């Protein structure tokens, strides 16, 4: 396998990956190591995993991290309700003792959460551990163990070894610093806002209905907007929404209709302060120089 293969595979699925990113993906895939993606919100980190799963025609298993995420949510849990019912039913039948205990703690009553699911697939899936920096440090430590051994121990069942090694993608937004141990286990790639040409390619791949001239204008406008002092810079997803909104409003040129452009800005500017900062005049100035 070759790193440019990865790039073209991703491109076929409509994801324009930078050279740095494709190389990181290639190395992570060929060495079987997890890939840690960092970057601002909205640069398409989560989408990378989704595209990868599509490109290699495999399942995407997603674990969304949050503060307080614990083993019961991430790895496995017993189906207690079913167990209770089974105990009742067993009592009616006169089944007791060891046999019922063995039956209750069998696969049948096991609820598999993303991490366990991921290591038990026939075909290696893409395991996306989204926003790992939101989970607390205890979980990070546990994850480290799973990622190095690819096995999970369930006291009642024993150790479950991975049938296939999943392709692991971790994303982080920088809400807190990740531990060095986790960083060292991973191949790393920093995802930036795409440059003008790349973003134009993304727009053309995702919204073919936008004309070439308008496309150039949109990208110029969004890139200029990112240079403004905003609370929340518009990401790639916002740019696509913006393009779709403009197409929906039937705007062929950004400078044509200040009122409708201002309305379409709702897709790009997501805080009250940012809306206030980009007045009609500023928007028009940016649009005027965008072409």
């Amino acid at each position: 396998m070759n790193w440019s293969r990865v790039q073209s595979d991703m491109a076929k699925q409509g994801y324009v990956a930078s050279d740095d990113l494709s190389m990181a993906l290639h190395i992570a895939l060929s060495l079987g190591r997890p890939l840690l993606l960092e970057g601002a919100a909205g640069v398409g980190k989560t989408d990378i995993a989704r595209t990868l799963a599509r490109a290699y025609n495999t399942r995407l298993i997603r674990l969304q991290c949050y503060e307080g995420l614990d083993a019961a949510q991430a790895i496995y849990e017993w189906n207690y309700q079913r167990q209770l019912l089974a105990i009742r039913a067993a009592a009616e039948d006169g089944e007791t003792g060891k046999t019922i205990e063995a039956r209750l703690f069998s696969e049948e009553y096991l609820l598999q959460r993303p991490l366990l699911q991921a290591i038990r697939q026939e075909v290696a899936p893409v395991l996306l551990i989204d926003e790992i920096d939101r989970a607390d440090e205890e979980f990070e430590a546990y994850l480290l163990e799973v990622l190095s051994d690819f096995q999970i121990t369930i006291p009642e069942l024993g150790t479950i070894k991975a049938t296939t090694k999943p392709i692991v993608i971790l994303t982080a937004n920088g809400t807190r610093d990740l531990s060095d141990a986790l960083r060292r286990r991973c191949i790393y790639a920093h995802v930036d806002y795409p440059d003008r040409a790349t973003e134009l390619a993304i727009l053309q791949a995702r919204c073919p209905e936008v004309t070439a001239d308008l496309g150039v204008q949109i990208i110029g406008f969004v890139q200029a907007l990112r240079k403004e002092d905003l609370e929340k810079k518009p990401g790639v997803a916002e740019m696509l929404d913006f393009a779709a909104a403009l197409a929906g409003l039937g705007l062929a040129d950004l400078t044509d209709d200040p009122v409708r452009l201002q309305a379409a800005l709702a897709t790009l500017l997501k805080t009250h302060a940012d809306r206030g900062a980009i007045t009609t005049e500023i928007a028009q100035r940016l649009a005027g120089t965008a072409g």
Partner: protein
Amino acid sequence: MSKITRFAARDPGPDARMAGFLAHLRAHGLRLGVGETDTALRALTTIDAADPTQACRALKAVCCSNAEDWAQFDTLFDSYWRNDGRVRQKVIASGRDAAPKHSRSSREAQQAASSDTKGTRDSPETSNQNGDSHMAGDGKLIASTVRNLMKKDLRELVSPQDIREAEVVARRLAQAFADRRSRRRKQARKGSRIDLRRVMRHSLATGGEPIKLAYRRRPDRTVKLTAICDVSGSMTVYAKIFLSFLAGMVRADNATDAYLFHTRLVRITEALRDDDPLRALNRLTLLADGFGGGSKIGSALDQFSRTYARKFVTGRSVVIILSDGYDTDPPELIATALARLKKRGCKVIWLNPLKGWEDYAPVARGMAAALPHLDLFAAANTLDNLASLAPKVSRL
């Protein structure tokens, strides 16, 4: 494309060169272990390693572990692998060029090889040092660079009684912070939620009847307090209150950490934790050499955020800065240092004695730069003032 570095004739091979490169990266602050050398070599086998662009990208993915590494990697790569034809290489060029010519005996060759590796590694560092001395030589900082070497006896300022009073206040404050509860549930005898896993296990003994109930609750997680106190000249009048407050805080809770700074930053936790309050003050006096001198808030916070904070500040920390905000460092330094500190997930509180004054506005440039990064900005010039903080911090 720039020229590829020529290695000494007796170079032991690609493995050693790669090890040299990782040492080069390590010298520039990338955190790499032995395992990474192996990973890097394996990564190179999966690509066309003869192509420098590909090799650079591949090594970048393996060796970097955060955004800063990522940003500086290309330069580091070039300075090691493509350093021929670069201006700053001139200094050591003679040593390296001489290597193949004179390598008649193995000893000479070895020397040449070692001087070569040294040279390549040293050159960027030398430029770094230049940069540092640039900063240190900034002419604006005359007032603060003059350290107050006169020793001031802190016992004149703080008495053991003060410490005891402050201890009470500090303990109350620490408790107010401590009420931040964990989101994670742990099994417990009493609690808000039933721990079904336990209940099921227990019920097996009673034929499926859940008689013995087990619960889960959110355990309290104590907050770690970290206090940084300004003892520069402008703060001398408040030092009595603040130092006794610090002492009280550190003695009230084992997890508390304390620092003070004037022109440099000193960790005083160990000193304050001394069993005997009087001896603690003695030790503090020794540490506080330079007390009442100029203030370099920016560089002190910057140093803190880069060094101690990495070890001691976590998401459960509350960093308390006690200072009036009169700084001789550029205000941006405070802003970036605080931003970096906040990245660790902690809360930052700034207690300013001047805020107690009527009509006070945070016009000091340093203070203004700090404001957007603070979770709480409050007055603190008396012990009562500090005591009244408790309800405010519990709302953070």
